[in-house]
């Protein structure tokens, strides 16, 4: 019998639970930075979770769910860490902040659209997160560095997943090609915001990574894939952004309303 044919184990990793129990609280400035990272991941996980039982094939249900779970894991770690600065839990931050207090970049809240648009968004954000987490492994803050070390490996896989689908959709059929070009056109205006420096990041020195320093590698990596896809970088409109300051597109509100509805109906409850 196959009882012995595979081993099941939990595997070692640094989790949200470990952080809230063992880690020293960050400064409020560093906490705000961790919150940005956590918000990006949380909003993306929430978006990807929608695909469960809706993906083009069952195998892809499983794949997208894995990515969503990775992102949710990163979100929980960063938000748990950030919360320590205000004696708040990951759930306080996820469920009881209002829209204007969320500091994710706007690209993460963009709708799933069709599968092509979701893949285009994955293509952009996984490339960005890959460079970011690799750089953050050297963060002067050891908690940020540790969370990033695990995340770097996971988003590397997300990047590969997105790349595989970029190729297949771009070079598959006329229909899929049309859709992936459209999908990337919808997502691309939000790329610029990801790489803007601001005072918060500049004030954190070696604990953070200035987003602008990641742009060159991002461009190189995306151009390489787009060339193989026989696609062009979309031109034109650049979104104004503002996500890091709590300014969002109209898509974030409904997402949060859905995510927070039950928790807010029972303030103070444990689950």
């Amino acid at each position, binding site marked *: 019998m*196959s009882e012995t*044919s*595979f*081993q*099941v*184990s*939990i*595997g070692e990793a640094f989790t949200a639970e470990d952080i809230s129990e063992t880690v020293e609280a960050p400064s409020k400035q560093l906490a705000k930075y961790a919150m940005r990272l956590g918000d990006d991941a949380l909003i993306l996980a929430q978006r990807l979770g929608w695909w469960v039982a809706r993906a083009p*094939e*069952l*195998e892809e249900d*499983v*794949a997208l769910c*894995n990515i969503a779970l990775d992102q949710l894991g990163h979100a929980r770690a960063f938000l748990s860490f950030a919360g320590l600065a205000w004696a708040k839990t990951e759930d306080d931050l996820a469920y009881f902040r209002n829209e204007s207090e969320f500091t994710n970049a706007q690209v993460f809240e963009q709708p799933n659209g069709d599968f092509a648009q979701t893949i285009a968004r994955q293509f952009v954000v996984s490339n960005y997160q890959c460079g970011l987490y690799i750089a953050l492994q050297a963060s002067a803050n050891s908690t940020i560095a540790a969370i990033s070390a695990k995340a770097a490996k996971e988003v590397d896989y997300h990047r*590969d*997943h997105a790349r*595989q689908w970029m190729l*297949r959709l771009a070079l598959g059929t006329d229909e899929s090609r049309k859709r992936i070009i459209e999908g990337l056109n919808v997502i691309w205006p939000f790329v610029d915001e990801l790489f803007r420096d601001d005072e918060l990041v500049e004030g954190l020195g070696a604990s953070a990574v200035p987003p602008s320093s990641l742009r060159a590698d991002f461009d190189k990596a995306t151009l390489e894939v787009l060339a193989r896809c026989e696609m062009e970088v979309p031109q034109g409109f650049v979104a104004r952004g503002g996500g890091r300051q709590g300014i969002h597109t109209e898509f974030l509100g409904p997402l949060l309303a859905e995510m927070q509805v039950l928790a807010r109906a029972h303030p103070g409850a444990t689950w």
Partner: protein
Amino acid sequence: MSSPGGTEHDTWPLWEVFVRASRGLSHLHAGSLHAPDAELALRNARDLYTRRNEGVSIWVVPSSEITTSDPDEKDAFFESPKGKRYRHASYYTEAEGVKHL
């Protein structure tokens, strides 16, 4: 001769998945899945069959590429080794009690 599960035509073909649980062990058959090509088959296998740390290495093979022995020839095919107990150490009883042998 036949292939396991490869009897029908589907949009995406069937692949057999073999997983190595840890270094030093063989790859063992874990199950099968659908994928359009080898690259995605490998990735689907990773997502489906190693969610709980079950593996350090994966092989995927198109089901249609596997050749199996014919079950109706089973007796002829697997008869020969039977009755050749002298291939096993347990056949040699006279050395019982002698150390390091």
